[in-house]
């Protein structure tokens, strides 16, 4: 305990040194920074239009699920009427498209356009997680499974384009078979299956149809693994976004119903056809560049392997040297002397890194907490979640957090120290660029020295009991400043802070805290001046509140 307190005393000096030497923290690898700035800018614009609560860019994963369900439901309907033979496949799809008084056509269109949407949303989602640096380290499983989902969805789309057995299907199957033939699977060139009309058998249609039905099962498994290391994954977008997307798909289906090209005839060459560029564009590229199947497969494989390996290729910047956080991000430890085996730390963890296992030290508790280092993001949520101070990160546990706050609001014994601050701000290190925002020792806000500061890895590490402790030791106001909405790197938004239904403000999920003395600011990194202003205003408010 003494060592921990010494650590608290030494920390500001270390932090000041770091600030002088390195100026500002650099969390994002340099290669991602331009894209990251662009992404922040675009998200900010979307926030302005939609509000952070309805910004579709924050719900891309859940929109993917929505589009998948639309494609699945419409696909089940289409399967009921689809005839699995080369002779009848085209006519059965035509019957649905034109013969079913239009609704079959709408469902077919919904099936096609939701699949197209799926591809767009997945690619935007991938770009977003890449440039927001959410694909490395403890997130590698999500990245790898996400990378696996893309070709699987593409393959699902290609098998889907085979089924209507029109000219597009003819072109797709010949091109695809050329690529597959280069694999050492079968000695017989797969193109021979499409050498003439009689070569296309009902068995082939049966295989393609059931591949088209089986691949979604594989997708669901991949999606499950994709979300496996995330606690409380968001898989349903807000109703407003859901309804708007469904309406948009319906309007598109009415305005431009999906139709087949002419019937496939392997005795003829495919001339000019309308291409679904989201799925079939790749075949056009291969045809245009005259790439043989082997080259296509080789270069595709090289690009794809590089893509999957990105989490290990892009390295972490030397963030601990640059960090100005009061609480360092290092390995989390559990002190079994204090651990009671309760699930508080486990529930607080956003990446399921904290688990409860059978008690090993003979104490009279059923379980004990254990950290899985590979899953741990070092966000610090569990540190303050533990009411018993059993969880610590870099020597910081609940007790040292409280001691730090007590020290901030305790006058120097000789009376020569700095004045006691009015309020304290817990600022997320990632929320905005803190360079020049704080005093040199990182203990006060530079423009409002009345406000003491504690820089933490994420505001999720601020527990209601810490806020209550601030009030107990004399803080007039407490500010918790973090990232806006789903910008939070550690997915904190779904835990402690929620949006009040009454007035849209952010509140802690504990009602006993005086809302007038607590301000949660979820900020945009582009509006530093506004943050300064809000801090100043709140500080004035609490001062006046105390005076009155």
């Amino acid at each position: 305990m003494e060592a921990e307190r010494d650590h608290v005393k030494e920390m500001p000096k270390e932090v000041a040194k770091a600030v002088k030497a390195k100026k500002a923290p650099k969390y994002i690898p340099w290669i991602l920074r331009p894209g990251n700035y662009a992404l922040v800018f675009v998200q900010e614009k979307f926030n302005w239009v939609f509000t952070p609560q309805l910004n579709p860019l924050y719900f891309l994963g859940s929109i993917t699920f929505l589009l998948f369900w639309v494609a699945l439901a419409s696909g089940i309907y289409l399967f009921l009427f689809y005839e699995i033979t080369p002779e009848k496949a085209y006519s059965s799809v035509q019957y649905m498209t034109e013969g079913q008084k239009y609704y079959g056509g709408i469902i077919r269109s919904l099936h096609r356009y939701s699949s197209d949407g799926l591809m767009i949303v997945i690619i935007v989602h991938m770009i977003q997680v890449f440039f927001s640096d959410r694909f490395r380290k403890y997130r590698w499983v999500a990245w790898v499974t996400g990378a696996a989902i893309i070709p699987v969805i593409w393959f699902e789309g290609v098998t889907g384009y085979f089924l209507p057995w029109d000219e597009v299907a003819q072109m797709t199957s010949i091109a695809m078979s050329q690529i597959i033939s280069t694999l050492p699977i079968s000695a017989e060139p797969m193109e021979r299956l499409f050498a003439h009309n009689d070569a296309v058998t009902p068995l082939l249609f049966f295989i393609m149809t059931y591949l088209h039905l089986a691949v979604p099962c594989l997708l669901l498994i991949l999606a499950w693994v994709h979300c496996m290391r995330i606690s409380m994954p968001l898989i349903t977008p807000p109703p407003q976004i859901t309804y708007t997307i469904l309406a948009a798909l319906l309007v598109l289906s009415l305005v431009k119903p999906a139709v087949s090209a002419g019937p496939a005839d392997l005795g003829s060459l495919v001339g000019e056809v309308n291409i679904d560029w989201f799925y079939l564009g790749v075949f056009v590229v291969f045809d245009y560049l005259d790439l043989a199947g082997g080259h296509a497969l080789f270069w595709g494989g090289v690009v794809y392997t590089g893509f999957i390996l990105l989490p290990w290729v892009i390295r972490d910047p030397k963030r601990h040297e640059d960090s100005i956080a009061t609480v360092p991000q290092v390995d989390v430890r559990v002190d079994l002397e204090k651990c009671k085996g309760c699930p508080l730390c486990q529930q607080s963890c956003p990446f399921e890194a904290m688990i409860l296992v059978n008690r090993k030290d003979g104490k009279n508790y059923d379980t004990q907490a254990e950290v899985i280092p590979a899953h741990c993001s070092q966000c610090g949520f569990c540190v303050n979640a533990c009411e018993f101070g059993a969880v610590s990160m870099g020597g910081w546990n609940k007790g040292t957090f409280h001691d730090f706050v007590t020290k901030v609001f305790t006058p120097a014994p000789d009376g020569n120290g700095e004045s006691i601050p009015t309020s304290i701000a817990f600022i997320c290190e990632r929320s905005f660029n803190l360079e020049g925002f704080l005093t040199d020792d990182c203990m006060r806000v530079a423009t409002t020295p009345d406000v003491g500061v504690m820089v933490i890895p994420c505001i999720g590490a601020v527990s209601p009991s810490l806020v209550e402790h601030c009030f107990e030791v004399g803080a007039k106001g407490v500010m918790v400043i973090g990232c806006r909405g789903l910008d939070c790197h550690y997915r904190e938004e779904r835990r402690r802070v929620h949006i009040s239904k009454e007035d849209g403000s952010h509140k802690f999920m504990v009602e006993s805290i005086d809302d007038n003395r607590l301000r949660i600011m979820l900020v945009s990194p582009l509006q530093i001046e506004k943050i300064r202003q809000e801090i100043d205003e709140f500080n004035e408010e609490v001062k006046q509140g105390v005076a009155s």
Partner: protein
Amino acid sequence: MKKRKITFSGGIMLFMPVVFIYLFSTWPSYEFYKPDESQLLVSLKKRTEKSHLCDEKEREAFMEEIASKPKHMQVVHRECGSRGRVPLELKIWLDGKESLTKVIKPAGLRSDGVVFVYEKFTFQSGPHDIKITMRDFKDDPNMKVHVFQEHIDFQPRKVTLVTYTPESDALLIHN
């Protein structure tokens, strides 16, 4: 209770990907083959001769060897000679010009399967002289050479398939 709604401009922005889908789900179209192009497709499979066939003496020795073994070791389906088969030599001439010469190995790790051929040639439609020869690639002057030679009027955007059937033992146009 204040209920959040998507603003008009937000709705418009959500519709933007739909416009993207509207455009790129069918546009721009792509022409895989020009209207005046035709294709000659040679697709066939053929079982070639074994690379070594037994003569009378070898066959007798083989049968004796089989008979000398205990009954449960006398493999019924085993044949005299090698298991592997010879490759197939394929030559194609278009309008008198040699366009392809290829020696294709039989399938299988021991080359004991059939030979698969899939070759296609795309050219301007119209009349063309086609000559295809095919023979088992063996140093044997008596080996049969299959020859297909015809003057064909290739129709625009049509595929002419030349294949081989063991029944006819000849290269012919598939109708």
